[in-house]
């Protein structure tokens, strides 16, 4: 169980590499999106590990929050050039 969570943390570190070194702003946004979904996976595995079902409620809320955040970022990205 701990091994699984460590593998997912490794994924999050790979995303973090892309966030630090991404050449354009769009790369960083993609990495943030992927990192959000991986954190949902980590939360679900922790719910199984600690036997706490309400952590899965947290996972559902995290999914919706990450989705709304990505939509807002994409709106910002698309709008800026249109207004010029």
């Amino acid at each position: 169980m701990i091994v699984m969570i460590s593998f997912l943390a490794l994924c999050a570190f790979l995303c973090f590499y892309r966030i630090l070194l991404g050449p354009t702003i769009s790369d960083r946004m993609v990495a943030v999106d992927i990192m959000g979904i991986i954190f949902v996976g980590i939360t679900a595995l922790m719910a199984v590990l600690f036997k706490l079902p309400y952590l899965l409620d947290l996972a559902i809320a995290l999914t919706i929050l990450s989705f709304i955040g990505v939509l807002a970022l994409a709106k910002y990205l698309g709008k800026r050039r249109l207004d010029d």
Partner: protein
Amino acid sequence: MIETIGWIIIWIGIAFDILGCLGLIRFPDVYNRLQASTKCVTLGTFGIMIGIFLIHGFTPMGIKALICGLFILLTSPVGAHALMRGSIIFGIKLWKGSVLDRYGKEKLGGERIEDR
């Protein structure tokens, strides 16, 4: 028996997650990175949720995991589509090995591919 299948599905999901993040590192431009990482990470996390559902059955934990997996399956492609459209409009160019850019040619006036 069914618990073993659940653990195997969780392991497969984690393998796909790692492959998606490797794609995020290895591919050359935003669009290819978005393709690889969105597909692999969506199926990987959906697999983790299905595995938890198979292990726990119809208890509160299993049903919540199933609902969470369905939410991920619905929201992830929409977010990727919005990011892709945003970065095209923002003006990020395609990789230099790309073949054609019909969207740029018809909507934005001229193909947007990096110079070789």
